[in-house]
């Protein structure tokens, strides 16, 4: 596979590369969304505990 030919993907570059880019985007979004969701959950949990603690006093 000559290097030039590799990028051309046998003339189908317009379809093959976007697919792989899209896959990378979906993977990245999943990771980022999961991390953000976990951080938000920790924040909310911390706030609930703080509220519960102040309620007891």
């Amino acid at each position, binding site marked *: *596979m000559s290097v030039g030919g*590799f990028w051309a*993907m*046998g*003339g*189908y570059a317009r*379809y*093959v590369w*976007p*697919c*792989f880019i*899209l*896959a990378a985007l*979906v*993977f990245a*979004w*999943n*990771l980022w*969304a*999961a*991390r953000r*969701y*976990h*951080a*938000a*959950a*920790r924040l*909310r*949990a*911390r706030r*609930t*505990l703080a509220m*519960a603690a102040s309620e007891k006093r």
Partner: protein
Amino acid sequence: MWTWFYKLASPPHVYSLAATFAPWFLGLAALLLGYGVVDGLAFAPPDYQQGDAFRIIYVHAPGAWMSTFIYTTMAVAGAIGLIWRIKVGHAVAAACAPIGASFTVLALATGSLWGKPMWGTYWAWDPRLTSELILLFLYVGVMSLRSAFEDAARGDRAAALLAIVGVVNVPIIHYSVVWWNSLHQGATVAKLGKPSMDAAMLWPLLSMFLGFMLFFGGVLCLRLQGEVLNRERQSNWVRQALKS
């Protein structure tokens, strides 16, 4: 003997389990995906019919498989939560939905991109792509139903029931769409994919499948921690968990 299974139902145990397994899953997934992409794109021979366009299969096929697999996982987890009232079941189901929806979108987009060179249009109502689209509607239905309830526990149970009803209907929808498609096309037009695969093409595909599955496992563990925390905010184990 059953203690490990019984412990799976206890949120703090699942929380720490998810935290330890996530990096392993993601690390392994990265390796397999790396190999699969490189081998699939650079070294696997082109298909004699479709040329290099067939390489899209390395992303489309695993994505399509994952979309159905995750929906089924979501329905099973929801059923466990609904029948045995195990909160972790609902947490897993809630974590599965967005991941499954994202893979469905990936399968749809790569499917239509693959369709362009084959049929000249991005959307030719191919039976598999049409069922994939309806599956996306099912995902959106489950997610919007879950978020429509203020009380998370009720939202979980309603979404679990809808997922169970949905998973029963997925095969019915698929085969009725295939039947509908055969009505108009008559003779089967070159359906999407299924090029004859020799071994060199198959290994990268297999590693992509495994990579997708492990990646799903890893992201599920990450999301599961958030879901478990949301449902267990009042219990005291959360205080230690927040410290780490």
